[in-house]
C-alpha cells in the first residue's frame, strides 16, 4: 500500500502530497473536536443535555435552548476554534521558516505588534466599529514584523537573528502596551488587561463572520506553500541549490503567518503559546511533511483554545476567566521543556 497520494492539476502548478496516515489522524482529531464542541455547548451555568444539543443543531429541537446555544455558546466556541486554527498555522509557518522549534508569534513580537495596535484602538478609538479591529491588529503585526525583518537583515536574514531581534522588539511592544494601559482610564485599563491575557468572552456572530475570511483565505495559501517550507527546512544553502527563491518565499510565508496571528489577536487578544505548542504536537503525530502538518496543527490549535475556553468559563463558576490564563499555564512549562529538549541546538 502506498503511504502517499498526490494530487496535481494538469499543468503541475499546484501539487499536494497527501499522507494517508495524516488523513486518519485528521479525521480522529475532527471527531474529537466535534465531541468537545457538544460537551462545551452543554456545560456552563445552565447545563444542557447533550442529546438536546444534537437535536437543536439538527434543527429538530423544541427551541428551548436557542438563546443559550445560538447567542451565547456557539459563536464563542466557533471563534475560539478559528482563533486556535489561525494561531496553530501561524506558529507552524514561523517554526518552519525560522527553523527553530522555539519560535512562535508571541515570542518573537508579532503578537506584541498586534496588541499595541489593538490596545490603542480599544483605548483611544473605542467609538469606531469593532469590525476595523482586525485590520488595525494585522497592520500592527505587519509593521512590527517588517521592522523585525529589516533589523534582522544583513545580506539576508538568518533565523537566529530574527528570534533575538524579535525578543528585543517584544520588549518594546510590551512596554508600549503597559504604557497605554497605565495611562488609560480605570475602566478600559482592566478591560484592556483582560484582553491582553487573551479571551473570547462575549464573542458574537459578527466577530465570527469577521474572523472567518482570514482563516479561509490564508490557511489554504499556507497549504499551497507547503512545498517551499519543506525545502527551506533543509537550510538556506540546500534550498538555494534546489532552485528555491529562499528570501522571497520566506517573506511570503512570514506575511501569511503575520496575517493569521494578527487576526487572531484582534478577536481573542494575546492568547500566548498556542502557536508554540500546536505545531509540536502535530509533528509528533504526523512527522515533518509540511502539507500534512498544516491541517493537523490547525485542528490542534483549535482544540487547545476551545478546551481552554470551556475550562476557563466553567471551572470557577460564576467567574468567567480569560482562556489565555489556562493556555499559558500549560504553555509556559511546555516552553521550558522544549528548551530542555533542544539544549544541544
Amino acid at each position, binding site marked *: 500500500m502506498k503511504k502517499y497520494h498526490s494530487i496535481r492539476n494538469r499543468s503541475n502548478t499546484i501539487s499536494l502530497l497527501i499522507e494517508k496516515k495524516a488523513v486518519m489522524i485528521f479525521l480522529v482529531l475532527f471527531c474529537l473536536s466535534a465531541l468537545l464542541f457538544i460537551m462545551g455547548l452543554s456545560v456552563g451555568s445552565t447545563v444542557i443535555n447533550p442529546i438536546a444539543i444534537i437535536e437543536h443543531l439538527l434543527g429538530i429541537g423544541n427551541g428551548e435552548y436557542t438563546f443559550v446555544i445560538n447567542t451565547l455558546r456557539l459563536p464563542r466556541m466557533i471563534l475560539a476554534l478559528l482563533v486556535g486554527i489561525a494561531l496553530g498555522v501561524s506558529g507552524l509557518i514561523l517554526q518552519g521558516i525560522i527553523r527553530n522549534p*522555539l519560535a512562535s508569534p508571541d*515570542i518573537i513580537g508579532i503578537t506584541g505588534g498586534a496588541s499595541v495596535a489593538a490596545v490603542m484602538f480599544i483605548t483611544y478609538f473605542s467609538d469606531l466599529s469593532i469590525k476595523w479591529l482586525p485590520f488595525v491588529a494585522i497592520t500592527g503585526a505587519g509593521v512590527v514584523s517588517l521592522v523585525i525583518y529589516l*533589523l*534582522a537583515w*544583513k545580506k539576508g536574514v538568518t533565523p*537566529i*537573528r530574527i*528570534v*533575538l*531581534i524579535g*525578543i*528585543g*522588539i517584544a*520588549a*518594546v511592544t*510590551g*512596554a*508600549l502596551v*503597559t*504604557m497605554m*494601559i*497605565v*495611562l488609560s482610564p*480605570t475602566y478600559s*485599563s*482592566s478591560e484592556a*488587561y*483582560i484582553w*491582553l*491575557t487573551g479571551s473570547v468572552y462575549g464573542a458574537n456572530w459578527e466577530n465570527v463572520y469577521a474572523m472567518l475570511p482570514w482563516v479561509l483565505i490564508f490557511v489554504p495559501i499556507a497549504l499551497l506553500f507547503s512545498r517551499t517550507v519543506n525545502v527551506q527546512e533543509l537550510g538556506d544553502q540546500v534550498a538555494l541549490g534546489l532552485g528555491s527563491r529562499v528570501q522571497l518565499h520566506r517573506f511570503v510565508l512570514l506575511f501569511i503567518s503575520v496575517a493569521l496571528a494578527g487576526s487572531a489577536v484582534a478577536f481573542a487578544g494575546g492568547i*500566548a*503559546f498556542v502557536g508554540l505548542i500546536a505545531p509540536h504536537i502535530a509533528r509528533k503525530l504526523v512527522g515533518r511533511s509540511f502539507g500534512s502538518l498544516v491541517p493537523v496543527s490547525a485542528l490542534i490549535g483549535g482544540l487547545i483554545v476551545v478546551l481552554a475556553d470551556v475550562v476557563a468559563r466553567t471551572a*470557577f463558576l460564576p*467567574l468567567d*476567566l*480569560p482562556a*489565555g*490564563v489556562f493556555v*499559558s*499555564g500549560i*504553555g*509556559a*512549562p511546555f*516552553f*521550558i521543556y522544549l*528548551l*530542555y529538549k533542544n*539544549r*544541544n*541546538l
Partner: protein
Amino acid sequence: MTHLFPRTSLKIWGFVIGLGIFVISFISSVVFGQTPISIRTAVEAFTHFDKSSTEHIIITTTRISRAVIATVIGASLAIAGALMQALTRNPMASPSIFGINAGALFFVVFSSVFLSVTSLVHFMWIAFLGAGIAAVMVFFLGSLGRDGLSPIKIVLAGTAITAFFGSFTQGLLVLNEQNLEGILFWLAGSVSGRTIDMLEPILPFMIGSGIIALLLANPINILTSGDEIAKGLGQRTILIKVLIGLVIIFLAGGSVAVGGSIGFIGLIIPHIVRSLVGIDYRWIIPYSALLGASLLLLADVAARFIIMPEEMPIGVMTAFIGAPFFIYLARRGFKSE
C-alpha cells in the same frame, strides 16, 4: 580590547566627570518636574525649612526620596548586570533578561494575593527568594547542553522563565481584579510614589552588597580569565561564584522589591562602561554604579516630561532606551566578545 581611558590617571578623571554627571542628574531630578523648583529653593528646603511653602514640601516629601530611590536602583541594577556578565562570561546577561524581574514579581504578587502579605520588609525577602529561584532556573536551563551558556541560550532560557512566571502573575491578577489597579503601575516599574522609609529596610542590604561587589572586584578579574586559571592561582572559585550570585540576587531582587520591573539598565551600562575603562572590574563596578544611577535618574526626569501632565512608568522608559541597544547587540553578533 580598545577602550577610551587606557591610563589610570585618565580613569580617575573619567570617574570625576562621571561623578559630575551623576550630581547634575540628581539635581535635575530634584529640580525639574510638574512644579519646577529653583536650586536655591531646593537648598533652602534643607537649610531653612518652611512648612507653609508647597515647594519645600514637594522637595522633602517626594522629589528627594524619588531621586534617592532612582539612584539606589540604577546603581544596583547596573552592578548586578556587570557581575552577571562577568559570572556567565556572556554579553547578554542582565537582571531583566535573566528573568529575575519576572520571578520576583510573581512571588510578590503571589504572596500578596494568597498570603495577604503587606509589609515591604516581607516583600523584600519574598522578592529576594523569587529573584534567586528565577536566576537559578535560567542559569541551569541555559547551561544545559554541549556548548554551555551561550548568549542565545541565555536569552531563550530567560524568555522562557519570564513567560513562565509572567503568565502565572497574569493569571493571579485576573483572578483578583481589585488588586490589579494598585499593582499595574508597579508592574510597569516606577520610582515615584514611594517614600524614603520604604527604602530604609532594604538599603543596608543593597549598600552591603555593593561594598562586597567592590571587594570581589579582584577575584572577579581572576575569574574572568577562566575557571582553570583561577583555580591554578589558588582561588576558591566555587565560593567566589556563590558570593557573586548572592550579591546579584540581593541587588536585583531588592531593586524589584522597591521599583518593580525596570529592565535593560543592567544590560546597557556594563557595555558602555567596558568601552570606557576596559575589563578591570575594580573600575567597572564603581563606574557602573555611577552611570547606572545617572541613567535611571535622567530616564526618570524624561518620564515626567514626555506626556505632561501625566507620567510615563520608568520601566517603559528604560525599555525604550534599552531595547534598541539589545537589538544592536543582537545585530552585531557575539563573535567579538
